[in-house]
């Protein structure tokens, strides 16, 4: 008569000591297989008590075997994977990576800053008439920009726009105030190509027309945009200037981010960097588009994107932005 208690103890010991999947399989066959002592005994059981006893042994041993199998399988997988070690410092698969041009990145930053202020974004035609590029913007007949030496003329009446300001006229003719818009696009000046000038460049031009706007609102708006573009520490100051289509006209400066305003090479030791032009919309411009200057007040401002890119990324030569050189483009 077999001592099943001892038998179970033997089996449990052997299960625990099986070191490989083959060994555990061997142990399973021996103790639980069709011809095992336990299987044969179960087949010959005649009484309920013995049946319950043997079934209990079988259930426990099966559980122990499958536990051990899982453990061994895990260990073996782990061992095998550890042998598959790779040099993780080798390069990854070379996937294509694209790049947005820095001017596009700045265009979006400008758009986002103005969207945050509730402005709409637009762009207008680049080939303009003298009427929209100069006359309606109140350029004096003697203004140097009217000369073919400064401006690209196709004929006496058509030019490549010299600034995005004609957008002011277009929007004022198309919409009733209040207006809050920023126009972004290419503009053209008859400049020789140098490190700091290119005859084609990009500007953004903002226009706000509402009741009760002030020069202080213009200053606050520019401060918001400059901080959006350059960081929250920046300050803005105004200097008087002259533009045909604004009165008063000012030039905004932003405090230099390289030296924080103490003076350095970038800001020519002034602590300030010129950002473009701005001012309160001249009543003559309103009169030219049929807006009542006694009721509506406007401010406008313009600024170059290339200049912004040069300052933001410390690009010494503006031509790099036009040459399509991947060594340049892949930096951004």
């Amino acid at each position, binding site marked *: 008569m077999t001592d099943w208690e001892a038998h179970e103890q033997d089996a449990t010991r052997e299960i625990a000591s099986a070191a490989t999947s083959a060994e555990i399989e061997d142990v399973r066959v021996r103790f639980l297989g069709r011809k095992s002592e336990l299987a044969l005994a179960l087949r010959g059981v005649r009484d309920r008590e013995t049946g319950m006893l043997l079934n209990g042994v079988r259930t426990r041993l099966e559980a122990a075997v499958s536990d051990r199998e899982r453990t061994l399988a895990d260990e073996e997988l782990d061992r095998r994977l550890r042998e598959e070690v790779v040099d993780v410092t080798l390069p990854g698969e070379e996937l294509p990576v694209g790049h*947005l041009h820095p001017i596009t990145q700045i265009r979006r930053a400008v758009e986002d800053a103005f969207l945050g202020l509730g402005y709409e974004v637009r762009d207008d*035609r680049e*080939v303009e008439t003298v009427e929209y590029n100069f006359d309606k913007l109140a350029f004096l007949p003697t203004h140097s920009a009217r000369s073919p030496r400064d401006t690209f003329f196709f*004929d006496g009446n058509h030019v490549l726009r010299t600034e995005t300001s004609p957008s002011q006229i277009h929007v004022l003719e198309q919409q009733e105030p209040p207006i809050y818009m920023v126009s972004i696009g290419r503009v053209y000046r008859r400049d020789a190509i140098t490190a700091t000038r290119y005859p*084609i460049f990009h500007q953004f031009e903002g226009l706000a027309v509402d009741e009760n706007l002030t020069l202080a*609102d213009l200053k606050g708006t520019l401060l918001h945009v400059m901080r959006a573009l350059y960081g929250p520490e920046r300050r803005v*100051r105004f200097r008087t200037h002259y533009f045909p289509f604004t*009165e008063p006209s000012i030039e905004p400066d932003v405090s230099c981010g390289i030296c924080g305003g103490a003076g350095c090479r970038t800001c020519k030791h002034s602590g300030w960097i010129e950002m473009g032009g701005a001012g309160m919309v001249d009543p003559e411009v309103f009169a030219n588009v049929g807006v009542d200057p006694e009721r509506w007040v406007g401010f406008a401002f313009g600024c170059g994107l290339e200049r912004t890119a040069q300052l933001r990324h410390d690009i010494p030569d503006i031509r790099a932005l036009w040459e399509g050189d991947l060594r340049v*483009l892949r930096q951004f």
Partner: protein
Amino acid sequence: MKVPVSWLRDYVDVEMPLEELATRLSISTAEIEGIERRGVDGSGGNLDLFRVGKVVEAVKHPNADRLQLTKVDVGEREPRSIVCGAWNFGAGATVAVALPGAVLPNGLRLEQRPVRGEISDGMILAEDEVGLGSDHSGIMLLDETEPGTPLADVLPLEDHVLLVESTGNRPDLQSVYGLAREIAALYELELRPAVEPVADLPPGPVEISIEDYDGCPRYVGRVYEDVGIGPSPVWLRSRIDAAGMRPISNVVDVTNYVMLALGNPLHAFDLTTLAGGRIVVRRAAAGERLRTLDGVDRELVADDLVIADEERAVALAGIMGGEETEIGDATRTVLLEAANFEPYGIYRSSERHRLRTEGSNRWEKGVDPHLAGTAADLATRLLVTLAGGRLTGHADVHAGLPERPVVRFRPGRADALIGIETPAERQHALLERLGFDRAGDDVVVPTWRARDVKREVDVIEEVARFRLEDVPNTLPARREMFGRLSREQRLRRRVEDALVGLGFAETYTPSLVPDDETTWKLPEPISVELTALRTSLLPSLVGAVRRNVDAGARRIALFELARVYLPAGELPNERLRVAGIAEGGFFHAKGVVEALHAALIAEPAFERAEHPLLHPGKTARTGAGFVGELHPRELEGTWGAFELDLLELFAGSREPVVYEDVISYPAVRQDIAVAVPEEVAAGDLVAAAREAAGPELKEIRVFDVYRGEQVGAGRKSVAFSVAYQSSDRTLDEEHATHLRDRIVAALAERFGAELRA
């Protein structure tokens, strides 16, 4: 304009630090673009070592033929012995001396040293050696002055020059006096008069007739006799040099000096060269000729305003004088012109003759007609003093000078526009300092600002520019606004982002290209490369790719999103396009175009086409443009290229998307293969299948094309994977089979297709 600080001090006490002055002027008046130091460094007592000296003895150096050995009294007990290389002086001359220890502008420190055996205990100075000018033909000869006087007392030995940006609205700032006036107003300083008026003007005779008062509102002519032409004194030469002009001779220098001082350009004629001895201001006769001072023989047109004598034009009015009547060494009688010219006419002539001068630059901005008399007076005082001239004739011809404008001005309106309060009294006080007078609710504008200040807002600007540093930062109290991108602007960003995701680098190339037969061509381009507005982006991109190939770049993929300018009526049709070029063949480029459509939620359609830059057998047209393999003539290697119109692309986009239920009722997927004649295009099979099956055919894609014996010669097998799906019920096998049968029947009927599987 370049403004020497020493000259400003003639009119206003400039005692504040120059950096501070420059900042204040930049904010409130005009940008100071820089401060140039000029002359001797005055720090560390250096100026004390420069003195006025009197030469008491001058003999040839005993050991050197080219040198003089001098004794010079510099106000000490004994004269100093100085060796000098110049011979334009002798005993009795008053000269400028630098003593040992003095540091010259070029950094040289003088030492007592022997020169060919004789002690030289200092240096007699030429103007270039102390930075007062460029002359080195001899030493400076000074007016008689007490020996030992600090040289800085008689010459601007140490000076600074302000570089003042000029703007079109402030002709008054094109002068030293105008800037002095601003400084006086900003700092509440006294402004000294520019010149003491010449009281006893001779009655004449100067014959002047103005035939065109519109072009020439005023002409003051003065005649000087017994004029001696010679060099100007050092102080005047140095001022002209500091202001950026070249000294020439006393009479010419005086005209330039007065222009720089006051802003009114002058001209001097040799009166004896004027036929009939008279001046006529008139329009040129068509075809009339004039040889100007720059030696150019010019043909005039009837729009040119000229100064003429009885017979011919002698000057292009306000722009440049003529050669035949210019002041020469032998000139004894001078006719001085202190006139006023209308800006636009001067501008037109200046443009037409491509001639810009110091004079025309000022006239174009509009010079105050009241200024001509003052300018003539200052010139008179200088010509009498410096050239020994006697004023013998005077005439002042005009048809009435303009009245000072009277403008309504409400200080409250200024506060409202600037956004900061300034007490009304303070506003009026600063306007008065600028030369405005108060007249009840109006202000009277000074003559020198009459062109620029005509409306209330112009007066407000005067107040504003004094308050710019105090303006606070506020934001508009906006109403009825919502900032958002338009659909086109959002989709444009999506196009850019999709291409970046596909590995393309964005590039910008010029919108102007070499002449490509477009109608929008610049008649006067700055270079042949930038001549015409482009009608396609691809040629510029090919250029960019080529440069990258030459630079050895790998995995080249470039795109640009920009405008083309298509001829259309009065203005070109400006269309935004996106174009790309990447390594790989037709199907790579087509994959990019398909991906781009997928990103936009649009379905492209392709048909064979031709394009001048693309491979004739591997080019397709889509609804928005072209895709193909770059013609090998354009670039060596295999390159895919595309150029698509953005608005056409967006027109096919289903943005914003309407949701479809693709979860509740699963799709049934099948493969279909048919054999068709070789020339049948896969795209046509797909289109026919869609038409036959209707909207329940959700997807159809060619996954294999096979040619071989089993199919037969001249035929090919095309295999599709298809998916049928309905959004309101589950499609059963029977219905799927029905759809499949309809597709197969349509393909058989239209293309002779045989079902293979």
